[in-house]
């Protein structure tokens, strides 16, 4: 993968505040719409998935933008988080009354499970480079999908039962199936809430900004920019890569739990290559390493198909054309040059204005 010249990390305090503010303004805006009854039902159903996609995009940005490794299997980690979260939520539902607490525990569980798998996969995989790494992550994503698609989990008074490929759980009378192979998980408690989603987005942002400002984050950035130079000043490449990859999987797992628990039924086929690619599209469109960009891109592109609904059958076609057009315009040398020139002109104008103002006063 080619290195992108300058990454816009937005590490200054002001940049961070703008990003946090953006999320809060969005939250406030939606709450006002909801209170005044102006929120369409379609959009209402999209609120939690939007938050989940935003967190997925942020987590993939850690791998692709900040660590600089292309991953095409992110949906695998999302999937592990989703189904771990489902199992935890179903098992603990009778014991815990508060939905918020239940969601919190499920999120933690989903994240830890995905992080663990990310760690185990990362050990062999991160030795590969570029497109080979991409294809192996894609392969792992497909393997995870295939395994979960053949997994049966049931719960009865004796505890959890697992079976693989064939459904022979042999549940007791009081038992119920949590996961039934290709049919997926049904009758889920829809405990994910919009506010929970926003809190997860804020937590992820805080986490990533803290990471970028820390010693670990600086080591990761140094590694991305020049691995050999980083190694020569004593940065343990394998260890830091693995840490970043595990963290990315951990966050993706939490996003998966949030996502799954906002629906009443989910199956593993949903978390396929297309989903991994969709998240990658968010990250690239938002700008590699640019956290605010990921948030905006994920939010807009999730809503875009809904906004294009009036085009009916042509909406996905329009979506693809918009996607291609954005890539062509943002990578057009002439247009980019023109835009930077205009920005410079504008900046110059402001400085001149300020100076003339000061001059007038003095």
């Amino acid at each position, binding site marked *: *993968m*080619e290195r*992108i010249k300058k990454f816009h990390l937005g590490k200054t305090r002001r940049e961070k505040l703008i990003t946090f503010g953006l999320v809060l303004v969005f939250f406030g805006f939606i709450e006002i719409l909801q209170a005044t009854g102006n929120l369409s039902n379609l959009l209402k159903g999209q609120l939690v998935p939007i938050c989940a996609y935003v967190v997925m995009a942020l987590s993939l940005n850690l791998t*692709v933008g900040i660590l600089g490794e*292309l991953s095409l299997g992110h949906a695998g980690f999302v999937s592990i988080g989703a189904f771990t979260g489902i199992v935890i939520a179903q098992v603990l539902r009778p014991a815990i009354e508060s939905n918020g607490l239940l969601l919190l525990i499920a999120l933690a569980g989903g994240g830890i499970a995905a992080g663990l798998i990310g760690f185990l996969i990362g050990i*062999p*995989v991160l*030795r*590969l*480079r570029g*497109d*080979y790494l*991409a*294809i*192996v992550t*894609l*392969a*792992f994503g*497909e*393997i995870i999908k*295939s*395994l979960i*698609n*053949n997994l049966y989990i049931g719960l009865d008074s004796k505890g959890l039962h697992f079976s693989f*490929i064939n459904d022979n759980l042999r549940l007791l009378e009081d038992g119920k199936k949590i996961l039934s192979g290709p049919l997926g998980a049904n009758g889920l408690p829809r405990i994910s809430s919009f506010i929970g989603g926003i809190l997860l987005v804020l937590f992820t942002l805080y986490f990533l900004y803290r990471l970028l400002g820390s010693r670990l984050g600086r080591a990761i950035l140094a590694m991305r920019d020049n691995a*050999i130079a980083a190694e020569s000043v004593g940065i343990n490449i394998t260890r830091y890569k693995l840490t970043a990859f595990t963290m990315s999987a951990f966050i993706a797992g939490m996003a998966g739990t949030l996502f799954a628990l906002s629906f009443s039924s989910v199956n593993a086929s949903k978390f396929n*290559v297309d989903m991994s*690619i969709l998240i*990658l*599209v968010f990250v*690239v*469109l938002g700008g*590699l390493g640019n956290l605010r960009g990921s948030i905006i891109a994920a939010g807009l592109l999730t809503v875009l198909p809904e906004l294009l609904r009036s085009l009916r*059958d*042509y909406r*996905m*076609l329009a*979506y*693809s*054309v918009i*996607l*291609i057009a954005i*890539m*062509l315009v*943002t*990578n*057009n*040398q002439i247009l980019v040059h023109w835009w930077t020139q205009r920005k410079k002109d504008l900046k110059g104008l402001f400085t001149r204005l300020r100076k003339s103002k000061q001059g007038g006063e003095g």
Partner: protein
Amino acid sequence: MSFLSHLINGISLGSIYAIIALGYTMVYGIAKMLNFAHGDVIMVGAYVCFFALNAFGLPPVVSILLAMLVCTVLGIIIERLAYKPLRAAPSLAVLITAIGVSYFLQNGALILWSASPKVFPTIFEGTIRLFDGQLTIGLTTLITIAACIVIMVGLTLFTGKTKMGKAMRACSEDKDAAILMGINVNRTISVTFAIGSGLAAIAGVLLCSAYPLLQPTTGSMPGIKAFTAAVFGGIGSIPGAFLGGILLGIIEIFAKAYISTELSDAIVFLVLILVLLIKPAGLLGKKTVVKV
């Protein structure tokens, strides 16, 4: 005897993967991009052939040639409109554009031809019986294997002997040096796309002859598997794509027959991962040394 029959089926499926993988690997070798839309060009080729056979009643050979023509033109148009403006852009930007093209083709097909699956007609009828009828092989299977071998030999000769083929190799070796030698790099890349897309049409017809359900998403999974096959053999290498495709087909059929149908995809990908961990550049790939 069932072993032999599985082996032949595996080679046949592998031949289809190999033909698709050739398209991926040639484009990657020269333009250094993963053309995610390749799988969907296969689907378009299959649809064109389907309509030529069913709606216009053209003879099979003409239908296949028509499908190749349409796909070749489509490949050139895609390259000109979507990829050519991005020659200098980072590879991820090109990757996302390719994904956009893939969405475009799938959804265009959905509008033009609807989501309901179409049953692809049998083009090559007949079976061959060997060993007193213990082993039956469909004609489609044999033709698929033969087509793959012909294409392989043809491409090897083309890249080895012709002027255009030499230009292709030069471009994949060092683009800047090729320009200095007076090679028209842009035209070479366009020709590569044209050849890859034309091959995709053949692969589409063969794929649908073997698995006769045709719908707008038909191309995506074989596309991804062929892409893994190309990586498996060492991306950028033509014999590698052939070897990777055939091996992937055999592994898939054997996994389906002897281990588990549900887990066959997982097994294929697991083998891929193991191979890449032992040989990080694929079976026949060149190992690049990074110099400081």
